[in-house]
C-alpha cells in the first residue's frame, strides 16, 4: 500500500492511523509519503500535541472530537503510526521540500518514526508499484 499523507488535520491523521492499523494487521507492506501539511504535523515539536493541529473541515468540532476519542479510548494518531510500524513493514518518508517549508530540514527534526527524507520521484515510483493507493 502506498499512502500520500498530505493532511495536517487531526481527524484525518487519526483516520490515516486507523487505516494503517488495519493494513498492518493484514501484513501489508506500507510506504507513507508525508507531504506539505503532513510534514508540519510530523515535526517533533508538533506531533501528538493537538493544540498545534487544526481540524480543517470542521474546526468548531475539534474539542468535541478529541474528547470523544478520549472517551472511546482511541489511540492518538502518532500512537497508531508507531504501533503499525512495530507490527508490519511500514516505512515513513518525509518530503524534503515540505520539511523545509515548515523549517525542518533534518530527519532528527521529525518525530522518531520517520525513516528518511525523500523527493517526489520516490513517491511516484512507489505509487506506480503499489496495489493500493491512498491520498489523505
Amino acid at each position: 500500500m502506498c499512502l500520500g499523507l498530505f493532511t495536517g488535520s487531526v481527524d484525518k491523521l487519526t483516520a490515516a492511523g486507523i487505516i494503517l492499523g488495519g493494513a498492518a494487521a493484514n501484513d501489508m507492506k506500507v510506504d507513507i509519503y508525508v507531504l506539505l501539511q503532513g510534514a508540519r504535523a510530523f515535526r517533533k515539536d508538533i506531533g501528538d500535541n493537538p493544540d498545534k493541529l487544526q481540524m480543517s473541515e470542521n474546526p468548531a468540532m475539534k474539542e468535541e472530537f478529541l474528547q470523544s476519542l478520549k472517551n472511546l479510548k482511541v489511540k492518538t494518531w502518532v500512537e497508531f503510526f508507531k504501533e503499525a510500524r512495530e507490527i508490519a513493514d511500514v516505512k515513513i518518508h518525509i518530503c524534503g521540500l515540505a520539511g523545509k517549508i515548515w523549517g525542518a530540514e533534518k530527519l532528527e527534526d521529525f518525530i522518531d518514526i520517520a525513516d528518511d527524507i525523500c523527493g517526489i520521484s520516490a513517491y511516484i515510483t512507489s505509487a506506480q508499484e503499489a496495489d493500493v493507493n491512498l491520498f489523505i
Partner: protein
Amino acid sequence: MTPEELKNANVVKTVDARGTACPGPLLEAKKAIGTIKAGDIMEVLSADEGTKVDIPKWCTKQGHEYLGTLEESGYFKIYLRKK
C-alpha cells in the same frame, strides 16, 4: 462450530480487547496469534461491533479458521483456530 461447541472449545489463549476501539481488537489479535501454535484455538473478547466482521475477514485473508462468535452481555467472544 455450534455455540455449544464454542463454549467447550479448548481455548489456549484469550485476548481481552474490550477496552480498545477499532482497530484495537484486530491489532491485539494479530500480536497474540504469534504466541500460539498452529491448530491452537484463540478467543478474542471485544465490545466493538465492527470486530465481529473484521476478525472473520482477517482470518480468511490470513488463512486462519474462523470458528464462530458468542454474544455475551455487552461484548463478543470471537473464536479462531491458527493455521
